[in-house]
């Protein structure tokens, strides 16, 4: 099988790569583009650790083919905030001690950002249902949910 040539946009930059026809986007990001922020926790779309957005839509990158990235806009955790200028979600997760091992954290950040894009003022229940696809085994979710809700408050320009 010959490789497929793909032109896409990742985190704001134009990117080209060659991938196998059956190669998933997660492997392309990690193995070909050296973006290892998205993690493979299951490979079956059950854990959310590989969450990225395609044209703003939240997906499990382990269930998307690399070839499907053609002409799309991909965002991974590496494209959200920077060490110098953290996204409010990243800052609130840190301030709330909402990570322990941190392996689910990139997926949580990508998923929560997608939530707030759609619903800037989620209730606790809405946040819990949206993030039900992102497994975290360390925290019991309490501090994650608090961090997401307080980041949302800040992003709406309200006082916490």
């Amino acid at each position, binding site marked *: 099988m010959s490789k497929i040539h793909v032109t896409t946009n990742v985190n704001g930059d134009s990117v080209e790569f060659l991938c196998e026809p059956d190669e998933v986007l997660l492997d392309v990001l990690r193995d070909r583009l050296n973006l290892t922020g998205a993690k493979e926790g299951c490979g079956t779309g059950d854990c959310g650790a590989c969450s990225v957005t395609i044209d703003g839509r939240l997906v499990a990158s382990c269930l998307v083919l690399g070839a499907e990235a053609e002409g799309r806009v991909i965002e991974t*955790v590496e494209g959200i905030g920077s060490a110098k200028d953290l996204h409010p979600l990243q800052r609130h997760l840190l301030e709330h*001690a909402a990570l322990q091992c941190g392996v689910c954290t990139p997926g949580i950040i990508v998923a929560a950002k997608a939530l707030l894009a759609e619903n800037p003022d989620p209730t606790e229940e809405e946040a819990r249902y949206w993030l039900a696809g992102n497994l975290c085994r360390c925290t019991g979710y309490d501090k994650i949910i608090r961090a997401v809700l307080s980041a949302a408050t800040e992003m709406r320009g309200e006082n916490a």
Partner: protein
Amino acid sequence: MKQEFKVLGTRPIRPDGLDKVTGKAMFGADKSVTGMLHARILRSPHAHAEIVSIDTSKAEALAGVKAVITGDDFADVENRWSRYTMQNCMAQGRALYDGHAVAAVAAVSKTIAAEALKLIEVEYKVLSHVMDVDEAMAPGAPVLHEGVKARKLGDDVSGNTVGYYSFGHGDPEKGFAAADEVIERTFKTAAVHQGYIEPHACLADLGSDGKGELWCSTQGHYMVREVCAEILHIDASQLRVTASEIGGGFGGKTTVFIEPVALKLSQKAGKPVKLVMSREDVFRASGPTMSASMDVKIGMSKDGKITGAHAKLRYQGGAFPYQMVMMGAMSAFAAYDLEHVQAEGWDVMTNRPKMISYRAPGAPMAVYAVESVMDELCQKLELDPIDTRLLNAAKEGTKSSYGPTFKAIGLVEALEAAKAHPHYSAPLAPNTGRGVSCGFWFNFGGQVSVSMAINADGTVNLIEGNPDIGGSRASISMMAAEALGIEFDRVRTIVGDTASVGFSDVTDGSRVTFAVGIATINAAKAAIKEMCQRAAKIWEIDAEAVEWVDGAAQPTGHNAGNFPPMSLAEIAATSGKTGGPIAGHHEGAPDKAGVSFGVHLVDVEVDPETGFTAIKRYTAFQDVGKAIHPAYVEGQIQGGAVQGIGWALNEEYIYGEDGRLQNAGFLDYRIPVASDLPMIEPVIIEVPNPGHPFGVRGCGETAIVPPLAAVANGVAQAIGVRMFALPMSPPKILKAL
């Protein structure tokens, strides 16, 4: 006397946090090197089978395949526990469970490695298997390994019974005779998996000269080094192991599953080899915890005093000998001050994956059985569950059910806090029940090494040897700052590789904040002593006339002279001229970890239509001794509670009649998700551990112990029927209704 602290008890941002929220942190599968190969493992589809032959020739002939190995590639090792570990990593002669590794391939790509696995021809002769602990223990059961039966046992149990333990004092029969009410029940709990989100992963590079580099996700890279060196027959000094960031472990990464395989493939291929487990492999072949079958009998007087208690615990730990029921037998009745008590335990082998620790290993199921019977007694005798526990609670001076006499402990404080909490008196809605349970864990000390350097700019580097699994670099930096009298952000703690700092035991037993903390404090003391000597030299006075106060040397006593305090930064700045670099280190094996008790309160609502149990409110009280970084202590309590909720309600290994695992994935093995839960309120109790300078006990494990019975007791109240097996999944509750 309550100590005053400047840094301890604050909530600074963790030093590894930025990397973890930006995706930069390097976990096990995130490292790659030029020219590396990708490995895959072939696993047995049978629960028990003789491996008649393995033909790897077609796989070896496939273009891109660089090495194929089987059990024959591993030479014997002398230590039998290491041999079991090796044979668990790669079967020799027999496959002992569904998922047992039988061969492995390294190839230039993942795809080719996967293709090559299909070309390996294995001829199996299927043998009879046994999965259930009671069946495995019965005479006549298929025996996993001959000659390993516990010596003191008779013919009434099978050769799978590899351990027997008994703890207690007094005479339980005498206690039952004195009781007004005696209840005896039998319980079963399913095997559950630690469920860390990061699968096991490593990158191995072992040369023909025996020099090796290994990068892996582990709770203990020194353990990895020693086990791998033994299995590969190389020198420990030549194998440098670096612990990656670890994506959860909970005990499941306190052994090796893939590292010896990757090293052997690398040795054979002469190239670096990356090996990452799939989630299915993690479920089928990395250690879940034990399943259990238990009988608990407790006698109680009308006023709630326990007169006698007896537990029989039968745990299965999979396909190899193991020793873990002991922890259950020791924990079962630890919460109570008892005159007549005995807890017995049997370790049993089955055709399941080799067990490995899961957070407070052995304790949750034993305590579940005991606390369920306690609840039933309270119901029957119409007693308040917290008052009854208070009446029987272990305290300082109590001779514990497992032997030692307790020093200062915080169970009474935790029970009183629970009783006074608004949760305990809040009204209950229909179909809702409120459960209470105590829980206990020992906490450990163990071997530890720390190296501290005082830099010329007044900052401090600290190297320790325990992988940071939940924020320990933060708590260790805080303790270093507190001990030195400087700001938290002046200290940077890193986890060194096995060649950079002395041996440290595995990150387990809630030991890191306790043991690394003590080593850090002692390393700081050594550095402080040196800094006092430097100041004395500058001031031209005796070193004995200098003391360390608030991060600075100052003269002490009448004749020391009148010098202004000299700060750590000032002493460090001139260290090059006063005798060279200033450092401190400590190696030791502190053993005075303090036991920790917890009390959990939960409100559950059971839907009578579906059998679904919803957690409506949860409050967890725990004595942690001293919370160094309270936010991460809360996180431990919350996370432990939620793992326990999963164990109580949903999680279980489901096997078919054929001995094959039927739910090897997160879709069918359901760990709690965000929408399953309410907020988990943690209440930190601080009764200082007299065995630690700052009072630290350890806090990681206790919280998984109470939820099983707390949830079960709540369900029993909500539906008016008591369940005697976990998990209480919806179909099982519907059946009980």
